[in-house]
């Protein structure tokens, strides 16, 4: 019953009604207002990791992640102020400086959500010191490859593996900028006994961190796969 209870709020000056429990991000998207995001993906549990979907809510000095904040009745949300644009630019630059993001020689060049977002936001330089990590590439799997130097820790792969495929091969180890995506108990991917080779991690990876060897990114990438499978499962 609760699903049908509608609430009304204002996003960027537009009055909109959405079912109770809807996140600000979804409420905005369903009404044609696009808020940038890298970690969020419909069909997966919201994570709030990339900090790109930050929005302002009138009456509160702090910023809210639109992907994890439920829309409340009477809320007045701003999604695109100068302050937010600036913060988003900084967030993208921080992601780019944390590891190795060399678009020109990346397998995901032209098919990368981080690159596209940087272009969209007008990020034409990185103001922070770049950290050129030299994590060994794991290509021990028959066709799946992980290059952790390109990982932005959005955890889409971890969530899709857990929630959609249901095997939870992927998880995280360590903390902060040293965090790493691991397979099983930190084994080489080729030695993982739980991985089913379903490729969904590669399909949803927003950058070139997980990919399929020998396959063009245009063929691999399909972030809508999570939403698609979830919708099929919930079909009555």
């Amino acid at each position, binding site marked *: 019953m609760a699903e049908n209870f509608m609430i009304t709020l204002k996003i960027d000056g537009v009055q909109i009604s959405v079912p109770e429990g809807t996140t600000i991000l979804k409420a905005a998207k369903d009404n044609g207002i696009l808020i940038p995001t890298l970690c969020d993906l419909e069909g997966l549990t919201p994570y709030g990791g990339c900090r790109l979907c930050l929005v302002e809510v009138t009456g509160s000095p702090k910023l809210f992640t639109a992907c994890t904040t439920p829309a409340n009745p009477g809320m007045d949300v701003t999604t695109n102020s100068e302050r937010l644009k600036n913060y988003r630019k900084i967030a993208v630059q921080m992601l780019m400086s944390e590891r190795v993001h060399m678009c020109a*020689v990346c397998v995901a060049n032209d098919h990368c959500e981080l690159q596209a977002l940087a272009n969209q936001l007008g990020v034409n330089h990185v103001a922070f010191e770049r950290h050129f990590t030299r994590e060994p590439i794991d290509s021990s799997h028959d066709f799946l490859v992980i290059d952790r130097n390109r990982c932005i820790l959005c955890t889409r792969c971890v969530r899709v593996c857990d929630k959609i495929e249901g095997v939870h091969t992927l998880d995280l180890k360590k903390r902060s900028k040293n965090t790493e995506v691991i397979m099983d108990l930190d084994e080489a991917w080729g030695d993982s006994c739980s991985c089913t080779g379903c490729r969904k991690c590669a399909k949803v990876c927003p950058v070139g961190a997980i990919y399929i060897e020998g396959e063009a990114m245009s063929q691999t990438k399909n972030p809508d796969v999570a939403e698609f499978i979830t919708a099929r499962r919930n079909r009555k």
Partner: protein
Amino acid sequence: MVNNDTAEKKIVINPVTRIEGHAQIDILLNQDNTVREAQFKVTDFRGFEKFTEGRPYYEMPAITSRSCGICPVSHILAAAKACDSIVGVNPPKTAVKLRRLMHMGQLIQSHALNFFHLSSPDLLFGFDSDPASRNVFGLIEKYPDLAVQGVKLRRFGQEIIEKIAGKRIHPSEWIQPGGVRWSLSRDRLDYLQDELPKALEIAENTLAMFKQMLSSFRDEVENFGNFPSYYMGLVDSDGGLEHYDGKLRIMDKDGNVVAECTDPLKYQEYIGEAVEPYTFMKFPYFKAVGYPEGAYRVGPLARLNVASHCGTPLADEEFKEFKRLGKNGVVQSTFHYHYARLIETLFCIESTKKLLEDPEILTEHVASRAMVNNYEGVGIAEAPRGTLIHHYKVDIQGRITWNNMVIATEHNNIAYNKAITQVAKKYVKTQQLQEGMLNRVEAVIRAFDPCLSCATHAVGQMALAIKLFDANGTLLDKQIR
């Protein structure tokens, strides 16, 4: 290195202009002000062989091609061939034809760039003319039709690359170990076929014009790196001109085939690499003879020297005429690199025509799929400037553990030094620094068309500083243009 007993003074040309990359030339003088030796110094340091370690082998076409913005396609192909040999598969026939076709585009655009943009100002305005107008802008002003033809010819080459592989520079997404990612569409093929006759006409006219001018450069032909050396280049199974695959042939000054390398993995049995302290560029040499006597040349001149024929009608006619310039068909003046380059351009356009008319060119099966099967792979292709070798070793996961790239320009390194020494001895009189004589020293390098990095300095805007030092390092004379 300057020996104070025999050489008192040094002239430095830094940077050398209108070449691809950064270099300087040092001219070392004897006490009596005669030229003792000239050294070609490459001042760039890139480090590709080291920083590619740990990267997956299939990224190599994309990474290594970044070493050059002029001939990325050649790097992509050499890298892809090395990757083919790592996965141990043969690409489908159509993929090979498409790769060849793209390479023809590369050769056409690069040869047009060298001839029209970089070298023709020297030939048309003369070596002693004012450097302020002796560049591509001067060319546009005085010979607008020729300049436009140059731009058009280069565009045709670039368009071949773009139509096949998606973009003009660094089209590495298209290539993959075991083939290519997508086939050629009918409308793109039709476009290239429509454009081809114009390009062919430009190539023929340019060659005719060059041959007419040749008689006025007798002095240069005689003194521009006119020395015997070995020559190296790929030839096909019949000994014909080849740029993509085939056997590596080494020929001596008299036209005898002294070595033929049929297995790319064994190239190191034929070629050694020496190192000198004054430059970042290595000195490859023919191993059987040793360093530095085993100096060999690569590039258009060497390719025409080692080949027995071209294989296309118009180019074959020109080829026969060209061969008459040398004893036993071996042309040794570096000045004739220009001539050879124009014949090759003609050959490439004719080959493009042949490939575009091939009934198999539109076939959609263009990739074989495979995984790492060998831990070592070598790819050899003929870049516009000569033989290009990529040699990789990988671990079981396909990560590069060792990388050796022998770039076309490197092969000629010993020859550069010989050639500039010869030109300096003939033209540099050290009492005063004259524009024309120093430009001739530069121009001989330009004839080789070296590609020292990814930069193009097509316009003579960079300062050319020439310095004259005495034995104590005191500056005696300086000219900046």
